[in-house]
Every structure is written in C-alpha cells, then in structure tokens.
C-alpha cells in the first residue's frame, strides 16, 4: 500500500506539494514479491564522497524505486550526536529518506553517545525500530537487535558493538529462537563489525569482530543464512560462497564451497538448495566504503573481490535469485554476484581456493588546480548574458548543436547562470530528480585583428562540463567519457568562484566574425541537491 503525506507545523505546510513525499508499506509476509534494497555503511561524514556515493546509487537506480535501505552503522561521525545525525545523515540522504525506510544497525561511532543496553541516546532517538515484531520476525523486546520480513525474505539486525556477543547471551539466544521460527525462503543478516575483513580493521585481531565470527556465525549458518552485510572496515570486500569459517586466524582451507566470482557472466552464480538449508553457503559483504577514507591492510583469504573505491550495494531478491551489485560513485557496477536456489545442492569443499581479485583506484593524474580569473580582461560574453538553452527530461540536442549555424528555434532563452537550489542561478531549472544534463550555446563576434590567443573561459559549475568551440571539444571536466546522453563517469564538483580556462591553444578554431561556444553541463546524480552552470567568455589583457 502506498501513502502520500505532507508535514505541517500547525497550519503551515512544511513539505512542498510533491508526490515524492510518499512511502509504501511492506508486502504481506510470505508473498513472492521481488525486493530491491540499498546497503550502505560508514558513510556519515557529511562530505563529498558520501554525497557522491548516494548520487551514484541514484544514478544507477534512475527511475526505479528502492523498497527500503539498510545502513550498517557509522552514519553520523564522529560521535553520533544529534547535530551530527542532522548534518551527516538526515540532510545528506533527505531525497531518499523522504520515501524510503532505512533499517539501521548501530555503529561504534553512534555507540559513543548511544547505548544498546539502555536503548538511549541520539541513535535511539533517530529511529523507532521494532521491539514487538511489528514488521514480522520474533519480538526482541529491544531496538538494539530485531528482525523483520519483506515478502519471502527474513532480515535480522544485530548489535555487534556494545551487547553480549557470547553464544548463550540474550542476543544470541533470541537469534536462535528467531531463526527457528522463520519460514522465509531467503535470510539476510546485518550488523556493524565484520566477521571477515582486512580493510581498515582486522577480523583476526579485534574482539568484536572475532566474537561475531566465532559465536554468531555458527548460529546463523546452522539456519541457512544467505548473505551478511557489515561495515566498520572502510573497504569493499565480498566473499566467495563460504561455510564454517569460524577459526582465528581465518583460513580458506576447508570452508569454501564455491571459489568462483558468483557472476553469471563470469564463473557463474553460486548455487544453493531451495529454501533455507543449513550450512549451504553464505556470502559476506563488507560495505564500509560509503563515504569515509578507505584503507586496506591485506587481502582476506575468503574474499572473491576487494575494491578500494567508494560505493554501496544494490541488492535484489527475485524468485530463486539473489543479486548483489556494488555500485561506484558514478553509478557503474564494479562487482556482481548471484545466489541461485533450486533443488538440493550438496555441500562440497573447494581445496586451495583462488585468491581475491583486487580493484584499486587508477593512479591520480597530476593535479590540475583550477586557474583564477586574470586581473585584467574585457568581456566577450559577460556574466549574466542570455544564452540559448535546452533542458528537460530526455531532452538532448540534435547532431551539430555545438557548431554554427544550428536551428535553435525550439530552444529557450535564459540568463546565465543556469541551475537550481544554491541561490546562484538566474535561470532556475526544474531538473532535480527529472534530468541531469543541460545544454547551452551562444554565438559571439570577434573583430578582425583580435588576439585570439587571449581568449579564455571563466565558469562556475556543479558537477561537470564539456565545452565546445565552433563544434570542437576544448574543455572536459568531471566526465570520464562520452557526451550528451552517452556521457558517463561523472565526478562531483562544487560551484564557487569562476574557474579560468585559457583557450589560446585553440586559437586556430576561431575566426573573425561569428563564432559559437557551446557547453553541456551534467549533474553527477539525478537527485543531486544542486546544479550550476555559469560561464563567461573573456579576452585577457
């Protein structure tokens, strides 16, 4: 059931009349409705990478709708205080949170100001989590650990931070009882401290991590858990299909059931028996790469894929398949695994499994610090000038749009800058959640005898631009490849002072008389909080 809502402060409506203010309740327990959910962890910095990871997910999803999302903790650095929750969680994820439930697990940073034992502190103020099995599962009587059902999948959240993790402690005993009861076809568990990692943390040396592996994993695997999501370690690590890997230090001997990559386009999907079969294999995902700095100590021997790039997971459970995709900040898929269930799959061990595949970022190119505008110049196209622009959902210009002549009769006219939200725009665009590219062009005249090598472009932009002079690309910032509707690989960039690009090297493209400059501006994500494109063309003196 879908509900639309508005929030009022007495008679004053706070939320705009916008259909995105909505939520959908879960389908009935046991139904076969597919589910698509986002998993993110260790994100709460309030910084550019957190924003980029969120936008990467939005770009990947485009018009698709998440059913809910899971946060595996550390959502409000440094200490999970109320202002940090506002700044680093609610404000950052507002476009998603307004219509998507977040199921949360407390991280150690929230644990500095909140307590699982007393269920008090800002984390417990921020969420109302089920204590009486309101969304399915078994009543835990506490918000610190709980379970819920979505269609035919059972989800379990545990507190790995500050509660007793021993196998006969209250949390483990509740877990055992909860697992005995569920009749779901799929089982997913999540908490903060990873049982298997060699990222910024080491699961062979740290107490919480060791205990979750040695004490909690046997209970989960005896009930057929399919996937476990954690964070804490700031890296993406995704395991092979494993079972019974409880030893310290971790070893890959005798515990790997499938050492392939789990990708149907690669080594093939992981196979498991239908329903929840004990000890039939689990995939562990450390998704601590949601925004904060990344670290890697070494490669954990149980991992299939280790990725040193920021991102998050999109998970889909549909029929007899569970699909996990790691999405980077550009919305690109960097890792895929599938668990396919059917019939009876006999447990067999892979001897001497393969080593993990490591993906690291490309070495950074020498930094190209933006130039400041020259002190003395004359305007060719001044700030605030009127440009032709094309902007709208699925609107992209015809071939040749960046050259002169070109028919712009169906383009609009507007004063620069173009954009929304950050109050630096003269032409406001309705692009948020609708489209992410805007095209502008303007003809300008250069007198004979002008020093063409003095031409330069000043531009304030958010997030990316491709600039054309008389039809030829001359500047590209924040777009890895392609152009127009085929542009991809966006990087976030904040607008600010005009950044200066000398165009003297392109003087051969210029001619006395009429020339044309054209710019396509891109947002890194369709739901980005702002967009800016504010150019000026000058002659340096």
């Amino acid at each position, binding site marked *: 059931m879908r509900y639309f809502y508005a929030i009022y402060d007495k008679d004053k409506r706070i939320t705009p009349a916008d259909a995105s203010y909505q939520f959908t309740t879960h389908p009935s327990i046991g139904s076969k409705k597919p589910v698509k959910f986002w998993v993110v962890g260790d994100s709460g910095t309030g910084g550019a990478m957190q924003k980029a990871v969120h936008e990467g997910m939005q770009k990947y999803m485009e018009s698709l709708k998440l059913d809910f999302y899971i946060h595996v903790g550390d959502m409000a650095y440094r200490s999970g205080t109320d202002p940090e929750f506002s700044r680093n969680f609610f404000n950052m994820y507002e476009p998603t949170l307004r219509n998507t439930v977040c199921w949360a697990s407390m991280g150690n940073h929230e644990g500095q100001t909140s307590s699982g034992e007393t269920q008090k*502190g800002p984390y417990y103020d921020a969420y109302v989590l089920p204590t009486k099995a309101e969304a399915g599962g078994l009543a835990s*009587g506490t918000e610190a650990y709980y379970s819920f059902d979505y269609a035919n999948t059972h989800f379990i959240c545990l507190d790995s931070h500050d509660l007793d993790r021993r196998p006969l402690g209250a949390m483990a005993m*509740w877990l055992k009882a909860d697992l005995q009861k569920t009749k779901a076809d799929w089982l997913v568990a999540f908490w903060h401290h990873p049982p298997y990692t060699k990222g910024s943390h080491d699961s062979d040396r740290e107490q919480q991590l060791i205990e979750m592996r040695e004490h909690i994993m046997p209970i989960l695997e005896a009930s057929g858990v399919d996937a476990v999501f954690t964070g804490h370690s700031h890296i993406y690590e995704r395991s092979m299909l494993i079972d019974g890997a409880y030893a310290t230090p971790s070893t890959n001997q*005798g515990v790997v059931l499938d050492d392939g990559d789990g990708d149907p386009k690669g080594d093939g999907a992981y196979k498991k028996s239908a329903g929840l079969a004990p000890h039939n294999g689990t995939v562990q995902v450390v998704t601590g790469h949601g925004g904060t700095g990344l670290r890697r100590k070494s490669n954990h021997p149980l991992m299939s894929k280790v990725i040193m790039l920021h991102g998050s997971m999109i998970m889909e459970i549909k029929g007899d398949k569970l699909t996990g995709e790691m999405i980077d900040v550009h919305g690109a898929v960097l890792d895929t695994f599938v668990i396919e269930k059917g019939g009876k799959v006999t447990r067999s061990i892979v001897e001497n499994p393969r080593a993990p595949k490591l993906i690291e970022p490309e070495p950074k190119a020498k930094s190209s610090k933006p130039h400041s505008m020259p002190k003395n110049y004359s305007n060719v196209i001044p700030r605030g000038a009127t440009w032709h622009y094309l902007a709208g959902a699925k609107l992209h210009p015809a071939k040749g749009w960046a050259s002169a002549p070109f028919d712009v009769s169906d383009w609009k006219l507007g004063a620069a800058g173009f954009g929304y939200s950050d109050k630096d725009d003269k032409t406001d665009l309705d692009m948020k959640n609708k489209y992410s590219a805007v095209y502008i062009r303007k003809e300008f005249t250069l007198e004979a005898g002008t020093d063409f090598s003095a031409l330069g472009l000043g531009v304030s932009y958010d997030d990316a631009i491709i600039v054309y002079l008389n039809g030829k690309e001359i500047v590209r910032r924040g777009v890895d490849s392609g152009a127009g509707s085929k542009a991809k690989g966006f990087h976030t960039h904040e607008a600010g002072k005009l950044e200066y690009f000398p165009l003297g090297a392109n003087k051969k493209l210029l001619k006395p008389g009429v020339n044309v400059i054209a710019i396509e501006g891109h947002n890194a994500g369709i739901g980005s909080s702002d967009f800016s494109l504010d150019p000026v063309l000058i002659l340096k003196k």
Partner: protein
Amino acid sequence: MSIRFFIRRVVVGEFLLSAIFLTDGLHAHESPHDTIHKLSHRIESTPTNAALYYARAIEYKSLGKASHAVADFRTVLRIDPSNLNSTLALARLLAVQSKPDQSLKLLDGRLKGAVSDESKARLLKAKSDIYFTTKQYQRSYDGVTEALTLVAKPSDDWYLQQAITNLQLGELIRRHQQLAIGFKKSASELLHYSWIDAKLDAGEGKEVKPTILKYRTESRFVSTWNIRLAQTLPLEATERKQVLAEAVVEMNQRLNMTRPDVTLLMDRCLAYHLQGDLKRAKQDRQWLETMKIQSFQILWLDWKLQSPAAAE
C-alpha cells in the same frame, strides 16, 4: 507505520556524553592500532584529558589488551571519579581478571555518589554480576532485583540473571513468576520462552503444553519445541520418544561438527539426557566444556542434567 522509522524523535539522550571522544583530528577510518598511536601522542600533550584515556581504553579492550585498558580506565577515574561508563567497564575487566574484591569496592564507592536511578541500577546490576561469578547467589539476586525496580526498560539479561539466581536458590515458582513480569514489561519472546522453560522446571508443564504445541507448529526448526514438549509427556509415552528422536535428527542435520552452534549443541545434550542416553549427553557436555562458554544457560543445562529425565 513505516514513516515512523525515519521521523526523528526530539527526545535528547541523557547520558554517555562523558564518553564522547574529544578526538578532533583523529580520522574515522583508522584501525585501533593507529587510533591508539595517535591518542597516545595527544595524551602526551594533554595528559589530563579523561576522554582521551577513555577512548584509548576502549581501543585496547577491542584488541584484548585488558591490562592496558584497566590502566587507562583507572586514569579516567582519577581525573573524573564520577565517570559511570569507566567505572562499569573497569569493574567488568577486574572481574574477568579474577579480582572481584577490587571490582566490588570500586562499584560500592561509585554507588555512594550515584544520583539517578539509572546510574544506581547499572551499578547494582554490575555488583550482581560480580556476586554471581563468586557464587554469592542471594546477594546477586538482591542486587539485580533492586536494579530491576529502578529502570523502565531493563534488558533481557537482567531478567535472565534474576531467573538463574532463583534457580540457584531453588526458588522455582518465584523464577517463573518474575519472568512473567519481565515478559509483560518488555514483550521479548526470549523471556516468554524462558518463562515456558521455568514453568517446565517447576513441574507446571501441563499449563504451557498448548503454547508449546502452538509455537512448534509455527516454527521451521522444531527441535527446541520438541525438547520442551517431551518434558510435558510421561516418561514412557511413545510420543515423547518420537519427538525427542525427531529433535536429534534435525539437530544433527544442522550441526557443523567441526565447530558447532553452541545453542544447538546444548539442546542436543539436553535431548540425549531426556532420552536417557547419558553417555552421549556427557560427551556433548564435555564438548561444551572445551569451548569454555560462560553463561547462565550452561548453569541451567547443568541443573537440568542433574534432574530426572522425566517431567511427570
């Protein structure tokens, strides 16, 4: 209802602010070793900042370096004697180090200055833990029972501790009565199930048999419910033998024999005992012993193993 999950309450947490790291400049993505290194560096320049010692103690604790953690918690308390979290953490560590007297002295000292009911309750519960480990069950019972009266939402552990002290004191009726209060207050099914066990242990199995049958029907794995059901049936009843045999088969299918799920192994030990297979029950109990699990549940299992196999 879903919207409630992301609308913020405006209540402000009342405690733990003393535990906030004053650690500007330390990056969130560092390992415990890196964090300890940087905290130590900062402690050199600001040696009276209690928060830095507390933060370092937590990191030491996570690495299993108990003596380092103890030293830092002690320093915190020298600088800020009223620090509740350091008091509790230090008391627990001292108990683990087999220093219960030091632990109790510390807790008693802090109790004298405790102002809020919640602080008192947490200190009393910690004292109860120490008394329990030293087998002073009456004192442990008194402590946790007083603590339970002081807080609105006690965790399940508190009720379970009260229940196990009742068991040790032979108070079987009071045990299930107090678990029933706990279940009503918290709605935790774990307490409900513990209440069912307590009713069985008190010889009131008939009363809970319908509930056991209902839950058994609702469950995917039935071994635990079969074990409970068996305790409501006469010793020679065929059904009793059947449900226990069924339980053992199911548990054997689920147990990883290299490193078993302790909760299942405990159940199997009890099932063998109820079957009268004392040899296998003993083997499982010895296996549990090798795993060095400290828990109320193990004490309860030992109590069960000393009891006759039949309930009625």
